[in-house]
């Protein structure tokens, strides 16, 4: 709870800073503030599953919530460091964008530390509404408008479905509190509304994660939004939604039935396959990463098959994916800064004109593809071995085949960078992007070399 309060007060500070004309201080102060919040969050580590009774049982600080909150805070710090340069052309709205990002983080933290479905709903709405604004934030750009509109329509449609699910769960149990629902869900004589409600909540969350049958909005929205917003959506928002789905399922039901597991297997295989096959024929890099994100959602959904033990694997996978994503987007924003679109041709010859950036982008793509020494490989390895142990061989076979397919489109970009000739002059890189990209990829490699740093946390 302290974490959430501090984050929200940082957001309010951002809004006030505009009045007092402190725009220059904004990024340093918020980044330092968030580092402080990260400290608080890690400091709460020793407290385990103690529900803050002062707050009406709305939130609880558990190891799960602290670990994921810390990950979200780190990702937000990276995003904020990049904002300074990204919004240079619209300085008057700068503080609003920073504030919206901080509130987005508040929603994310609420979503992983809720114990009451009311808090969950508020968290997901705060996160989504912030993202609608960010997606449509280039007001004069028709593509950004279109992305915002599509995201808004799909997002609020999904929110309606989630709300209906919450309502049916409430009707069946009489409680919003997760512990009470968990205790009641084992009992016999549960009305049929309860499984329907849980299913509706899961469908709504699958919309937010952009998993296979509900993925159709993602490519358009990712392509049209400003690049930094796409970075937020494909790293932070996806990780938050996945962690929340995990928490919801493990918090509301004692054990998934055979039918539910079969459904998860089907959705997981579908997401991986559709994401990868569609990504092969994309020319726009943002669109390609959107489809890559869909396939990664399929991989992450595998962790739901080993629901009781997969928390640490999920944390590791999401951290590896999100850090690689941040590094990749830092380079993509830098390269396509003054270009009209994000087509692959814009990346031609960066290997010669800008070797450092090319190396970082290569490393992050290799991590996403799952090549050893990068953490993406160990993440997939752990996920696969957990799933095989649980007896779902077929989904692992599909996963391995899809990893091989994914190498195809990641290498298309890498080859463009190193083998094609550049027709551009060398451009100066803003310092912030370089720092963000280097730190993110170094963190990715460090957790790749020492996986136990993260995997031991939630044991």
């Amino acid at each position, binding site marked *: 709870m302290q974490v959430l309060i501090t984050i929200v007060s940082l957001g309010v500070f951002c809004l006030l800073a505009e009045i007092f004309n402190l725009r220059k201080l904004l990024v340093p102060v918020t980044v330092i503030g968030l580092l402080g919040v990260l400290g608080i969050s890690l400091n709460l580590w020793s407290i385990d599953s103690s529900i803050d009774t002062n707050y009406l049982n709305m939130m609880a600080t558990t190891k799960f919530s602290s670990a994921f909150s810390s990950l979200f805070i780190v990702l937000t710090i990276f995003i904020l460091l990049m904002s300074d340069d990204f919004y240079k052309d619209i300085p008057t709205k700068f503080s609003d964008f920073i504030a919206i990002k901080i509130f987005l983080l508040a929603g994310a933290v609420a979503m992983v530390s809720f114990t009451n479905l009311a808090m969950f709903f508020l968290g997901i709405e705060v996160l989504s509404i912030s993202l609608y604004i960010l997606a449509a934030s280039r007001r004069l750009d028709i593509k950004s408008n*279109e992305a915002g509109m599509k995201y*808004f329509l799909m997002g609020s449609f999904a929110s309606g479905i989630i709300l209906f699910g919450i309502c049916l769960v409430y009707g069946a149990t009489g409680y919003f509190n997760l512990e009470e629902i968990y205790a009641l869900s084992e009992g016999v004589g549960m009305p049929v509304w309860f499984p329907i409600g849980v299913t509706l909540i899961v469908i709504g969350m699958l919309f937010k994660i952009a998993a296979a049958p509900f993925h159709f909005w993602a490519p358009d929205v990712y392509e049209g939004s400003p690049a930094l917003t796409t970075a937020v959506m494909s790293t932070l928002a996806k990780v938050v939604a996945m962690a929340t789905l995990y928490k919801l399922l493990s918090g509301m039901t004692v054990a998934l039935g055979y039918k539910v597991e079969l459904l998860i297997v089907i959705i997981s295989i579908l997401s991986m396959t559709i994401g990868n096959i569609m990504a092969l024929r994309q020319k726009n890099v943002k669109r390609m990463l959107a489809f890559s994100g869909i396939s990664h959602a399929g991989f992450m959904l595998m962790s739901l098959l080993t629901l009781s033990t997969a928390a640490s694997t999920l944390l590791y996978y999401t951290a590896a994916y999100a850090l690689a994503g941040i590094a990749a987007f830092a380079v993509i924003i830098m390269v396509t800064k003054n270009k009209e679109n994000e087509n692959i041709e814009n990346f031609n010859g960066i290997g010669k004109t800008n070797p450092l950036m090319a190396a970082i982008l290569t490393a992050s793509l290799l991590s996403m593809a799952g090549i050893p020494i990068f953490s993406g490989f160990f993440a997939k390895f752990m996920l696969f071995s957990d799933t095989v142990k649980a007896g779902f061989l077929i989904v692992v076979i599909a996963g391995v085949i899809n990893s091989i397919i994914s190498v195809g489109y990641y290498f298309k970009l890498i080859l463009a960078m190193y083998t094609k000739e550049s027709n551009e002059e060398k451009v100066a890189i803003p310092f912030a992007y370089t720092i963000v990209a280097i730190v993110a990829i170094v963190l990715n490699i460090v957790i790749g070399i020492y996986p136990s740093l993260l995997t031991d946390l939630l044991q």
Partner: protein
Amino acid sequence: MIENILNIIGIENYIFLTVLLFCIGVFGVLYRRNAIIVFMSIEIMLNAVNLLFVAFSTYHQDAEGQVFVFFSMAVAAAEVAVGLAILVSVFRNLGSIDIDNLKNLKG
């Protein structure tokens, strides 16, 4: 058990009514092309659920459900405010609010 209107009507009928309203909303979102009507359909979906929350709240003799309705109303208002803002900027750029005109992003 207190004799109230809910026992006479039966909770199932409330659920049927809500599902009906919710489906009207869903089909409105899927089939109507005018953005404002789509917004209205989303509102119908959310308000149908609010109705069921209140019904369940009475059914369980528990005030929490009614409090949740306040939350969801506030959230719906915030959502529509943002949605209308996006709609205005779409209208300024395109001169129309037909969502079939939003076709720039294809691949």
